[in-house]
């Protein structure tokens, strides 16, 4: 054993790998940047081919409008405010459904996660219900609630509640008992343990659930609006279908995917901020 190595030298030796890692990082980032550019090539080529086929008259407008036509329609729909009001209606539905479903999912997960009785009461029915494909409930929802806003919001809420419940419940249960014991020896109260140990410990898994549930929320919205709607993006698309206006349909679809992308990015940002300790 080389006990004669002075502590400073030891520190240098252990510090070396970290320095090397820091040097390597920018190089990897540069390569990633190039790859990002390269990945744009084929989508742009497909877009160009699409435009060429449309301009040549091979791809007719009642099958699929040309990219330029779609762009023009989007500008038009934005100019007269149709797109904004339809989007606002759809966002409103998702927001209400998400808030109701997320609240239910979170509350149930906390009840089941924090107590044995809660688990026995909540978890079995939740596990049974989760196997139901929730889109299959649409006929029942229509029977119960008609075809207004309520069944749409209910469908979204159903879709949101389950992934959030399952992940948050699993997150609470996965909190390491050793941390709870440490909290106990620090004399933390029940509330403090919740705040400092259980909540942050369950957060990573809960955020996974949040991302899943937001994805399901948008999907549920699209399904609900396609089934029946008198306003919103789904109405815009259904109305366009009647007149074979494929350009409007594609604009509607593009807004759907943009909204999905937006919420996903939002959760990613929350993750990066809230889970900074993991890096």
């Amino acid at each position, binding site marked *: *054993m080389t*006990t004669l*190595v002075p*502590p400073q030298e*030891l520190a240098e030796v*252990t510090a070396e790998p970290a320095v090397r890692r820091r040097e390597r990082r920018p190089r990897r980032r540069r390569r990633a940047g190039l790859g990002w550019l390269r990945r744009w090539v084929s989508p742009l080529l497909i877009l160009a081919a699409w435009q060429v086929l449309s301009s040549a008259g091979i791809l007719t407008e009642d099958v699929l409008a040309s990219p330029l036509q779609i762009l023009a329609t989007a500008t038009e729909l934005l100019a007269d405010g149709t797109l904004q009001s339809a989007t606002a209606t759809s966002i409103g539905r998702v927001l209400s459904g998400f808030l109701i479903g997320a609240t239910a999912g979170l509350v149930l997960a906390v009840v089941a*996660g*924090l*107590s*044995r009785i809660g*688990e026995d009461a909540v978890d079995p029915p939740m596990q049974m219900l989760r196997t139901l494909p929730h889109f299959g409930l649409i006929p029942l929802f229509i029977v119960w609630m008609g075809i207004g806003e309520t069944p749409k919001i209910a469908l979204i809420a159903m879709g949101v509640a389950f992934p959030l419940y399952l992940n948050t419940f699993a997150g*609470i*249960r996965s*909190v390491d*008992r*050793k*941390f*709870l*014991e*440490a909290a*106990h*020896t*620090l*004399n*933390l*109260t*029940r509330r*403090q*343990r*919740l705040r*400092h*140990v*259980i909540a*942050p*410990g369950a*957060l990573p898994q809960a955020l996974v659930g949040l991302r899943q549930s937001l994805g399901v929320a948008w999907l549920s919205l699209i399904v609900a609006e396609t089934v029946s709607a008198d306003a919103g993006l789904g109405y815009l698309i259904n109305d366009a279908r009647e007149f074979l206006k494929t350009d409007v349909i594609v604009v509607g679809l593009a807004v759907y995917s943009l909204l999905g992308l937006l919420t996903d990015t939002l959760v990613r940002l929350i993750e990066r901020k809230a*889970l*900074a*300790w*993991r*890096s």
Partner: protein
Amino acid sequence: MALMTRNPRHQTPRPNRTDATEDGTGRSVATVTELHRSFGTTHVLRGLDLEIRGGEFVALLGRSGSGKSTLLRSLAGLDPASPRELTVHGAVSVAFQEPRLLPWRTVEDNVALALANGPLRRIRREHARRSLDEVGLTEKRDAWPLSLSGGQAQRVSLARALVSKPNLLLLDEPFSALDALTRIEMHRLVVALWKRHRPGVLLVTHDVDEALALADRVLVLDQGQVAAQWSLAVPRGRRNGDPQISAIRTHVLEALGVDAGTRNPRTERPTESGAA
């Protein structure tokens, strides 16, 4: 298994305390009388008696399964015990084998958390910084625990244990996962901190030489009881090669069931046949 319950057994396993009236040096900080502890049909502690005085550094040795950890958990309040069996006077802190720092709180917040029920936020912060300063990690106060080395994390754990000025400090093999050099540094640090704060210390360890280097008193636990104990009169730092300490070392190894000729306390008992 529920994480939090209202079951009173989970709410009050804290050792029964009396308030410390003075700084407590020389007074008993923990009294264990006839402590029995069993899991199912396995009796882990069978009428254990132990007293730890304020400012006293006690090392507890024993084979795996001798009940060391069980005793420590009882003293830490993690397992229930009746006031007749176990009394801790004043505050008790624990440094575990794994530092158990909350990874989602900064180093400073981890230390300050030990004072969560105490003074104002600003004062908690001040105390936490002072405590981190004592273990030489001031510059790491805003770091995430996962970015620390094993030795650094263990030092933060010590800072967290000491920031609440405990009368009894329980050390549960805190150095066993560290490399040999870091362990030597940690030994020095623990002795320095102990001299400054003077809590009663109970160090649970597998390492006979560690126990002999640090403690005032060495206990050997066997079959749920204190089988033997020695007081070490030789001052720390002059123990290496001291004949008195060497003699005690031989006795300790014997009490642990190790052939006195071997250097490794983890060697099997002579009565157990098998490969080395």
